C-alpha cells in the first residue's frame, strides 16, 4: 500500500475556550475520501489546517510529505473548491481559470492551455468566453471545480460540491468527482453533509463529531451487510410471524415489514417454508445494509 498523502497525528485546535478539534488522528491514502460531520464538527478547521491556513494548537499534519504549517509552497500541488460563491461575475471562465493557474505558479502560456483543457474536461468548453455572472448554479460549480484542478494538483479538497444543485446537476457533479480521481489521477477529500453522496462517491470516510474523530475507514466497511433480512408481504403477516417462530427464527415487526435474524443461509429455507405455510404473498426480501446515517445515531457497524 502506498504512503498516505495526508496524515494527521494528535491534532488539536482551540479557539480560546472553544475546542474545534481534539486529539484527532487519521491518514488519507490515494482515492476519494469523504469527511463527514455536523455543523461545528471540525471539518472546516481540519481542512484549513491541512491547507496551512491556520496553525494547530498541538499535533502534526503532513500533506504530500511536507508539514502543513511549514511552507505555503505545498499549496501549489493542492486544489480547493469552496462551498460558497467565489467567482467574479464580470470575467469569463477562460480568463479566470488562466489567471488562477498563473496564481498557482504556472507560466502564462501553460496557464492558458491548462485552462482550456480543464474547461473541456469539466464540460464548460462551449461557454468559456461568457461572463460568469450569467452562469447557472451547475455551471458555477463546474468552474469552481475547474479552478481547483487547473494547476493539476496532486490532491484536491472539495467543500460541499453538490450544494445548491438539482438532482441532474448533482449526479453530473458526483460523476465529475469520481472522474477526477479515476481518470485524472487526482486524489480527493470531499466534505459533505449528504450521506448518499459520500456513500456513492467515496472509497473511505472520516467522521468527526464535536471535534473528535468517531470513525475512519473504508466506506464498504460501514455499509456492509448486516446479519438480518428484511421481508415484506402483501397479506397474512401475523400468520407468517407465527410460522417463522415455530421454526425457531427470531423475527421482529419493523415498520411495514419483518426483520429476521439470519446469521447463516438456512434462514432463507425457513422463510420459504413459512411463506408457503402462511400463504403469504411475498413482495420484497433483501439482506439489510448499514447506512452511514447510523454513524450519527451512535451506531457501530
Amino acid at each position, binding site marked *: 500500500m502506498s504512503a498516505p498523502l495526508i496524515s494527521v497525528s494528535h491534532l488539536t485546535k482551540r479557539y480560546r475556550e472553544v475546542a474545534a478539534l481534539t486529539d484527532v488522528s487519521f491518514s488519507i491514502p490515494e482515492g476519494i475520501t469523504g469527511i463527514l460531520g455536523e455543523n461545528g464538527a471540525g471539518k472546516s478547521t481540519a481542512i484549513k489546517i491541512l491547507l496551512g*491556513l491556520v496553525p494547530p494548537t498541538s499535533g502534526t499534519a503532513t500533506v504530500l510529505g511536507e508539514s502543513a504549517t511549514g511552507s505555503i509552497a505545498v*499549496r501549489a500541488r493542492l486544489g480547493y473548491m469552496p462551498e460558497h460563491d467565489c467567482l467574479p*461575475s464580470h470575467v469569463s471562465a477562460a480568463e479566470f481559470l488562466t489567471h488562477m493557474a498563473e496564481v498557482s505558479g504556472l507560466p502564462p502560456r501553460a496557464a492558458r492551455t491548462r485552462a482550456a483543457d480543464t474547461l473541456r474536461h469539466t464540460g464548460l468548453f462551449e461557454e468559456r468566453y461568457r461572463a460568469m455572472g450569467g452562469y447557472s448554479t451547475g455551471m458555477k460549480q463546474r468552474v469552481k471545480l475547474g479552478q481547483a484542478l487547473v494547476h493539476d494538483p496532486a490532491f484536491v479538497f472539495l467543500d460541499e460540491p453538490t450544494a445548491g444543485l438539482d438532482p441532474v446537476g448533482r449526479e453530473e457533479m458526483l460523476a465529475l468527482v469520481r472522474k477526477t480521481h479515476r481518470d485524472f489521477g487526482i486524489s480527493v477529500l470531499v466534505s459533505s453533509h449528504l450521506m448518499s453522496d459520500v456513500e456513492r462517491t467515496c472509497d473511505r470516510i472520516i467522521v468527526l463529531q464535536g471535534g473528535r474523530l468517531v470513525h475512519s475507514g473504508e466506506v464498504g466497511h460501514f455499509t456492509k451487510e448486516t446479519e438480518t433480512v428484511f421481508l415484506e408481504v402483501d397479506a397474512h403477516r401475523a400468520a407468517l410471524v407465527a410460522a417463522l417462530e415455530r421454526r425457531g427464527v427470531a423475527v421482529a415487526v419493523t415498520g411495514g415489514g419483518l426483520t429476521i435474524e439470519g446469521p447463516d443461509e438456512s434462514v432463507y429455507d425457513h422463510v420459504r417454508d413459512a411463506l408457503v405455510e402462511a400463504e403469504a404473498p411475498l413482495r420484497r426480501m433483501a439482506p439489510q445494509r448499514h447506512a452511514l446515517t447510523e454513524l450519527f445515531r451512535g451506531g457501530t457497524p
Partner: protein
Amino acid sequence: MSTEPRGGTVFDIGYQRYTGLREGRSRGRAAVFRDGVRAALGLGRGPRAKLLPWLFVALLSGIALIMALIAGAAERLGGPGSMERLNLPSHADFYGIASIILFVFAAIVAPELLCRDRREGVINLYLVRPLSGTDYVAARWGAFCTVMVAAAWLPQAILFAGLSMGDPDPTAYLAAHWLDIPRFLLAGAAMAAYITTLALLTASFTTRRAYASVFLVGLFVITTPFTAGLSQEIGGRAGQWISMFNLTNIPVHVNDVIFGEVSELTEDAPARAFGGAKLVAWYLVWTLVPAAILWSRYRRMTP
C-alpha cells in the same frame, strides 16, 4: 481527379498531467499585480470600466499641456524669462494643482482592487494558493501605486517636453532645468505612495466600492477646506497643528521640500511653520501607519 470528401478524425487524448515548470510564489504575485493594473485601468473590460480611469489620465495630461502651451506662448510673446517674471506655474506647482484630481481618481478606482475580491469571495481562492495575505495585498498595493505613479509622471513628462520645446533655446532650457526630472519623479512617487495607501486602507474596511469611494472623496475634499478654515481662524500653534491634518496638503509639503519651492496650494498653510523635516516625518507617519494597518488586516486573513 478524386471527388472523395476529405475528412479528419478528432482523437480525445484524455486528461493530461502537467509536467512543465512551476514558477511558484513569484509568478503568483506577478499575476495578482498584473490583474490589479488591468482592473485599475479597465483593460480587458468593457468601455464603461475604461471610461473613468482614462478620463482622469486625459484630464491630468490636458492640464500639463495647457500649462506648457501658456508658458511657451509667454516665452515667445514676452521674450526669454517671461515665465519666471509672470510667475507661471511649473513642475513644482503641478502636483499642488493636480493633487485633488489624483485623490478623486484614487477614491473612485482604488476600491475596485480590493472590494470586489472580498465581496465576490475571490479572495478565498487566492489565499488557498501558494500566496500569503501579505503577498496579495502587497501585489495589489504595487499595482495601484504603479498606476498612480504613471498618472503622476505622465503629465509632468508632457509638461517638461512642452516647456523644453516652447523655449526659444531648448538646449539651454534642458541644461538649466534637468534637475526638475528627478524632482518630479521623486515627488510623484511620494504622492502616489501616500494616496495609494490611504485609498486601499479605506477599501479594506468595506466590500462595497461605492462606500469606500464616497468616504475617500469626503476625506480628501471636505477635510481640506475645513482644516484650512479652522487653522486660519484659530491661529497660533493649535492652528498649525490643525493645518497638519489637511490630508490633501501632506504630500504637497513633501513636494515643496523636494523642489525647494512653495507651491500655490501650500503657501498659506500654517503647517509650513513646522519646517521641512517635520513635514516629511509627518508624511511618513501618514503613509507608513496606514500601510501597517492595511498589512495587519490581510496578514492573517483566512478564507
